[in-house]
């Protein structure tokens, strides 16, 4: 028994030493990437493994649960092994995490960028994060179904034509076997499509009129009627009862993927899932993305909404070795063939010099619109103060509205909520 005990102790000691040796290796630097986009997780894990295989540098990729990035980041940043690479995608992020960001100006990855417009820069001009990709969103259209319903893409040029087509399809939904819009789910897994993306429409037009260059203290909600118009269109012309948007556990992607609806408001990142053979295996040729029309004058010249919340920052508080390792990894990812391929395949729009052409048709659609002289709808929502709280309030008000409440609640959450959150964030 005693001999067994001493053996056991010896084994434990060896392991402890081995563990020490393991952390000793840490002098070479490690990369810990706290990923922001759940849909990217799988690809990044593969990329990380591949990089480790090639260079021996450990790359850990952890993905925060959808909608829980800020909490996860807060918790992780407090640990001794904090993320070395993390997402700072908007003004609020810079406000919170600016002090933790290494100035990325003139790093190799920075120099490989084709544009600086997706970077996040703080008040002092420090480059807190550099855009990893840009994305575009709009209304994804299943052209096969659209044709079946007797329309073609060109029939939709503005809000009125969209409305006409959608209402017609919805009216004939029984005969057609599909409806106009997918469900506009308001639970955590889907509500950002509306409180974030769709809400960008009124914000964008107001910001465009007012010429915002930074987060305004107050907003007027001038274009909220347009927001209401498009939201009503979505909810009135879908198979889902609008009182159940928050609770029914809806899966709009599946509805679209299975051909149950023609229109699906989402972004370029959906391409991979929609076409993947093991997911919905849709035909890439059937997919197209059109701008979100909401009845603002002159919007027939609108393009897709493109921009990014996906910008990477390097932890300034990490050890020098880790910082170097992280910058090296970042450089490899945005310059090497393998890294860029992975990014392009999964993200589409990658603003780096050597990035190959994406086969994602949504980017092609976006570029075609821009080429035709349409204006890009910027991601004005990146200005949102205390973005999660503001959005949560808007979603809540929208839920109330959909179950028969007044639109005023949405207005209050939208306009007054902005002022309150601005005050709170700047107190």
């Amino acid at each position, binding site marked *: 028994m005693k001999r067994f005990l001493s053996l056991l102790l010896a084994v434990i000691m060896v392991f402890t030493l081995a563990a020490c040796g393991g952390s000793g290796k840490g002098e070479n630097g490690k990369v810990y990437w706290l990923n922001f986009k759940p849909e990217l997780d799988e690809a990044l894990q593969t990329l990380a493994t591949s990089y480790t295989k090639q260079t021996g540098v450990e790359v850990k990729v952890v993905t925060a649960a959808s909608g829980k990035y*800020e*909490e996860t980041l*807060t918790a992780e*940043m*407090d640990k001794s092994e904090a993320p070395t690479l993390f997402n700072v995608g908007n003004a*609020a992020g810079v*406000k*919170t*995490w600016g*002090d*933790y960001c290494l100035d990325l100006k003139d790093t190799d990855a920075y120099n490989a960028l084709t544009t600086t417009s997706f970077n996040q820069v703080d008040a002092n001009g420090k480059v807190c994060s550099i855009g990893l990709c840009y994305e575009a969103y709009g209304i994804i259209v299943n052209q096969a179904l659209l044709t079946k319903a007797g329309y073609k893409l060109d029939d939709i040029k503005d809000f009125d034509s969209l409305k006409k087509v959608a209402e017609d399809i919805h009216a004939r939904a029984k005969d057609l076997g599909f409806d106009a819009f997918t469900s506009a789910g308001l639970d955590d897994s889907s509500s950002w499509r509306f409180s974030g993306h769709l809400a960008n429409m009124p914000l964008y037009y107001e910001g465009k009129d007012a010429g915002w260059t930074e987060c305004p203290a107050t907003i007027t909600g001038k274009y909220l009627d347009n927001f209401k118009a498009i939201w009503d269109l979505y909810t009135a012309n879908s198979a889902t009862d609008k*009182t*159940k948007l*928050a*609770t*029914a*556990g809806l899966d709009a992607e599946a509805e679209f993927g299975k051909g149950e609806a023609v229109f699906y408001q989402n972004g370029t990142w959906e391409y991979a899932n929609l076409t993947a053979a093991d997911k919905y295996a849709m035909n890439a040729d059937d997919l197209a993305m059109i701008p979100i029309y909401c009845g603002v004058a002159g919007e027939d010249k609108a393009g897709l909404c493109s921009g990014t919340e996906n910008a990477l920052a390097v932890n300034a508080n990490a050890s020098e070795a880790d910082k170097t390792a992280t910058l090296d990894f970042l450089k490899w990812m945005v310059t090497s063939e393998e890294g860029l391929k992975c990014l392009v395949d999964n993200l589409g729009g990658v603003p780096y010099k050597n990035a190959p052409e994406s086969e994602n048709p949504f980017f092609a659609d976006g570029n075609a619109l821009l080429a035709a002289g349409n204006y890009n709808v910027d991601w004005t929502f990146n200005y949102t103060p*205390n*973005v*999660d*709280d*503001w959005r*949560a*309030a808007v979603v*809540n*008000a929208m*839920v*109330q509205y959909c*179950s*028969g*409440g007044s639109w005023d*609640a949405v207005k*209050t*959450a939208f306009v*007054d*909520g902005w*002022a*309150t*959150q601005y*005050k*709170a*964030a700047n*107190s």
Partner: protein
Amino acid sequence: MKLKRDAAALNSKLLRRPIQKCFILFLIPTFGAFIIGFIYPFLQGIYLSFCKFITTRNATFIGIDNYKTALTDSTFLHAFWYTALFAIVSLLLINILAFAIAYALTREIKGSNLFRTVFFMPNLIGGIVLGYIWSMIFDGVLSRYNTSILLESKYGFWGLIILMCWQQIGYMMIIYIAGIQSVPEDMIEAARIDGASGWQTLIKVVIPSVMPSITICTFLTLTNSFKLFDQNLALTGGSPFEFKSDGTIIKTTEMLALNIYNTFYGSNTAARGTAQAKAVIFFVLVATISIIQLRATRNKEVQQ
């Protein structure tokens, strides 16, 4: 001489002294765990409540500003009153129902063991899971009336009460059953001969005799209600919101713990110190209430 190897020998001072000197050795593991798991975080938490910080490792001391903000925060005050109301209602309902069921199940009903198990089971399910399951159940019912638990604060309130009753009654019932079973049969019979009716026996004999169980159960339900978090988060998450004219958003079904959590993890990172201050206030509050409650019920306890 024959060597005595009995307990008395172990009690000999010669043996006991050296062992007693080692008592620290035996205390270290638990005490260490207690310090790491409780004392240190507790003190750190109090310190942080006087600081402005984003991550706990670089905090700047700012004095009592956090407390000022916390105490003037209308969402916090709303959460407090809401929690207090919830605690009172659930305290009463859970204990009355749990006692009634326990009383019924000690009356030699057929299959009472099965019932005990069944009533206890909900307690084994985690709060988050329960919250989501019940939100589905409530919405399944409410959607018939074209509404949802997220839309009316009164639905959220009673929904949470129902959930908590469902979850906790079984646990409290077990404690009450133990209490009721320890009431001597003779005493009940004596009361019967003394002419007490069933009701009089219950009120004047059984209940005073199970005061220790009542103390522990009210303590548990009260603190559980005050500390409630998972179920609150999963069932309504604070919905529906009420938008005040000054722009503040009152999450009408948000309880204290959830309020603290939302303050801490909300995107307004400047408020983390405030959340910490709220947490300290919360601790003082829960501790005070439970001490008062323990005092009050302990006084009524008797020993057999």
